[in-house]
């Protein structure tokens, strides 16, 4: 008899699956009960982090005594239940449903961005779907490629509803919805507008949960390959803190594996002239944002101040709470700060014409592509960042050049823009920016050394966290939230003027950047937590853990920027925000 781990106080239920007796806690669904026996019941609409939909019906199983098949995702087990997952009708159902989906699907797998990484493809392979007898009923629906971040291909949509749930239940936005009925049902936006013209903030969480290629990031890999082939160009790359703890997933490594060294080697082998670190930009952000916070605190500026490094969050503020943008820190994101330095200080020092520099950034994020395209992010027609790749696109590049990633030797980031502190590393997790800022703000204000630099109150996966920190004679009240569902709760207070906080950190994606919309397909909350732990591990193991102690940052200020918030710092490292009007308002 197979016995799952007994949970205290939850009564156990006895059943059989394919005649194998099993005992599971009451409340367990058939799908999870089967998993404990190593039986993977096929599913497409089911996602472990989402509310159960029971739409796709692929997980239908036979239960003795029941006239109809039951959905394994939504049916709780009961005492004496006899489940069969492999009878003729179950197999007929699985095969028929896949055939029906394929008949209404654009089957150009070979040129699909999700080729070999597609749940539908995987299941068709598993069930050996060959020569489907059904005629194609696919309607001619073109790809929708209207913004720098996200591309939708309705011809690949299987109407599972995962994207709808992510947008509504995780972000509270509901930019995507079902419309129409019967075979005309589609996943679309309000009034069929392009996503960027709706409430959408381009976070890309939809692309992360889509089981097929119906919602994907805009692919910019060719821009990078072209630049790398151009002998005239000096191509530099920066990598966000959360990429190095996610990249390994795609190469058969354990979730949360720290692959910084292999990643740097891979980027060098790809042909980048310099491999730098966004963590350096994160340290720089702390210098500016920390100084801005102190300035606001001491000179009666707008409080609470809110972080501005998550572009999905900035888009959200501009679209949904435009009257509150004064609360956003004017500091650019680490990526854009890095880009500004890479297009000014760096070429001056290296003796390179700025026009020959191409800055590429690898980000866990689809909204970063939009951020890089903002006209504010650059000067004299030269953008801070030329191309943004998501983690997923970097995976493609590594596969393209045929690297055996797992076996690559480790190497170090280049200098000067590759040196960073633990404070920069934790930017990738919800609470990390706040903790990094507090480490610096505390020491700047008090002039004392911070003894305990871990701020455990702002760590972890809770949606909203708060803490109060006594700095000199003033108690600073801080708040940290991730996902826009949670951000909205915080913003309702800010809007009403009742927010009790001085400083608020918001990241748009669950878990922060480690759970970003550009991360590897298959990212779940369980994996996010492992990546989060990995970032804190990186921080713990670094000799320098406070941004202001970064010697390269100190040099940068000494040689180039002067002080935080200086005239030059403002020109290069700060930005402005503006209300984004929607084409429709329902007031």
């Amino acid at each position, binding site marked *: 008899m197979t016995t799952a781990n007994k949970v205290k106080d939850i009564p156990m239920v006895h059943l059989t699956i394919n005649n194998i007796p099993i005992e599971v806690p009451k409340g367990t669904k058939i799908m999870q009960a089967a998993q404990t026996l190593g039986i993977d019941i096929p599913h497409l609409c089911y996602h472990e982090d989402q509310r*159960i*939909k*029971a*739409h*796709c*019906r*692929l997980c*239908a199983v036979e239960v003795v005594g029941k006239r*109809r*098949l039951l*959905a394994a995702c*939504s049916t*709780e087990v009961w005492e004496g239940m006899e489940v069969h997952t492999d009878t003729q*009708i179950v197999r*007929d*159902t699985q095969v*028929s*449903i896949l055939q*029906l*989906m394929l*008949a*209404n699907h654009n089957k150009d797998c070979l040129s699909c961005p999700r080729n070999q990484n597609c749940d539908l493809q995987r299941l068709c392979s598993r069930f050996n779907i060959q020569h489907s*007898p*059904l*005629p194609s*009923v696919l309607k001619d629906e073109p790809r929708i490629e209207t913004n720098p971040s996200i591309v939708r291909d309705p011809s690949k949509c*299987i*109407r599972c*509803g995962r994207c709808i749930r992510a947008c509504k239940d995780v972000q509270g936005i509901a930019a995507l919805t*079902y419309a*129409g*009925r*019967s*075979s*005309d*049902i589609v996943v679309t936006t309000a009034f069929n507008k392009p996503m960027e013209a709706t409430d959408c903030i381009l976070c890309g969480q939809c692309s992360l949960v889509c089981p097929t290629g119906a919602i994907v990031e805009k692919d910019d890999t060719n821009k990078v390959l072209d630049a790398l082939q151009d002998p005239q160009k000096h191509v530099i790359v920066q990598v966000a803190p959360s990429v190095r703890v996610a990249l390994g997933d795609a190469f058969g490594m354990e979730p949360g594996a720290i692959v910084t060294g292999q990643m740097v080697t891979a980027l060098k082998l790809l042909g980048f002239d310099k491999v730098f670190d966004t963590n350096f930009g994160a340290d720089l952000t702390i210098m500016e944002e920390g100084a801005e916070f102190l300035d606001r605190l001491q000179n009666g500026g707008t409080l609470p101040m809110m972080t501005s490094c998550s572009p999905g969050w900035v888009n959200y503020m501009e679209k949904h709470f435009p009257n509150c943008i004064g609360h956003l820190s004017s500091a650019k994101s680490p990526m854009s700060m890095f880009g500004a330095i890479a297009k000014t200080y760096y070429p001056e020092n290296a003796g390179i014409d700025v026009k020959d520099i191409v800055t590429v950034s690898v980000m866990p994020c689809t909204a970063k592509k939009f951020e890089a395209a903002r006209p504010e992010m650059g000067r004299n027609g030269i953008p801070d960042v030329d191309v943004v790749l998501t983690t997923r696109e970097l995976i493609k590049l590594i596969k393209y050049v045929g690297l055996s990633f797992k076996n690559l030797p480790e190497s170090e980031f280049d200098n000067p823009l590759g040196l960073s502190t633990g404070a920069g590393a934790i930017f990738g997790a919800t609470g990390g920016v706040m903790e990094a800022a507090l480490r610096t703000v505390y020491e700047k204000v008090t002039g004392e050394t911070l003894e305990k630099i871990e701020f455990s109150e702002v760590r972890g996966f809770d949606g909203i966290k708060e803490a109060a920190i006594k700095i000199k004679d003033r108690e600073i009240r801080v708040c940290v939230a991730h996902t826009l569902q949670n951000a909205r709760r915080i913003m309702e207070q800010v809007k009403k003027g009742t927010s009790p906080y001085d400083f608020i950190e918001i990241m748009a994606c669950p878990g922060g950047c480690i759970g970003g919309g550009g991360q590897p397909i298959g990212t779940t909350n369980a994996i996010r937590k492992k990546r989060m732990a990995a970032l804190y591990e990186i921080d713990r193991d670094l000799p320098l853990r406070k941004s202001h102690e970064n010697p390269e940052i100190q040099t940068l200020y000494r040689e180039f920027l002067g002080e935080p918030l200086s005239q030059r710092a403002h020109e290069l490292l700060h930005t402005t925000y503006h209300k984004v009007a929607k084409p429709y308002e329902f007031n």
Partner: protein
Amino acid sequence: MSNQIKFLTKNFGQYDTSSIGSYMNIGGFEALRKAVTMDPEKICDRITEVKVRGRGGAEYPLGRKWSQARAVVGENKVVVCNADEGETTTFKDRELIQKDPFNLIEALIIAGYVCGATDGYIYMRAEYACLRPLLLNAIRQAKNYGFLGENILGKGFNFNLHLYSGGGAYVCGEGTALIRSIEGKAGRPRMKPPFIKVSGLFARPTCLNNVESLSIVPHLLVDTDNVYASCGSGESIGTKMISVAGNVNHPGVFEIPFGTTVREIIYNLAGGIQHDRDIQLIQFGGASGKIADASILDTPYTYDDLRNAGVMVGSGGILVIDERTSVIDFLRMNQEFFSEESCGQCTPCREGNLHIKIILDKIANHTATQEDIRIMATIARVMSMSSLCGLGETAQNTLQSAMLTFPEVFEVGGTES
């Protein structure tokens, strides 16, 4: 007209449907007055005694349903009347509302009393908009007379009634879709659990009943002569509202005692087939119903007899199709309906209806292969076995019964076309 009986229809034409006073003059609200003196469980027992089954089509025992609704622990329970009546050839609920609106109001108040509900909702199909003023007037008058509102009949029982019109979707006759529609959401079914008896309308415990099921109760409570129990036999006791349509001389709504034969219904009550043509097929229970050929004529109209004959009571609709329409053309028409009305959420129903329509067209055009027939049968079975809701489950009832009753229609040429 000896087969007709007046039990549910006994008030028809007997009072002014715009006047509560007129209704009270013929004994209106006596059932409610009696009900509030009774132990609610006794009312459930009374219903169970005469084996009333839900008349919407699912045939769930009404007494048991109410008893379960009573037992659910929860605040602000709701009773909902399903007046969506979307099944094709089904229009008996319209007659009950139009000709005896106060009886329905009275029934809902009794249901509220039995289930311990604070609110009742009538969800009426969009096409019955002409009945809205009638019902709204009846609700208003009932409120003015103290049959709705606070402390009804001095029994400390509070109950309010609301009328809601649908948007025209067939699927909103399905319980969870109906509830979403009232809530202002798109009318698409959801998975169960949670079952609506626990978490239904506005997440409140909800007891959902068909118009006819409800309408029986007031009559039953004052049925001192046991007229109801004297009709029918076995599992099919009492009377049944049926609506007959198609190629008959006198289509219409009839109340019959259970046990009346199909022949009596079609040839006596509905006046026989136009121009004495032959019957091609008869569909029982609307578009999601099953079909039979003329060999069913001498079957008594009861739950069990119809089931043994391969069809079902379902919605109570009976559609008679004469020899001029081929089985395939009838199936294509029926399929057209479901290809429109599927909500589109679940794969088997959304895509299956589309492909079955294509294959039926091929059969009509003589281009279908045996492989097509095999695929069609498989899809129909998969739909009925695995769809999310009752619509997908029953959408191919007609086709599946046709394949059994008229196998020759599906004998097509060789495997190559």
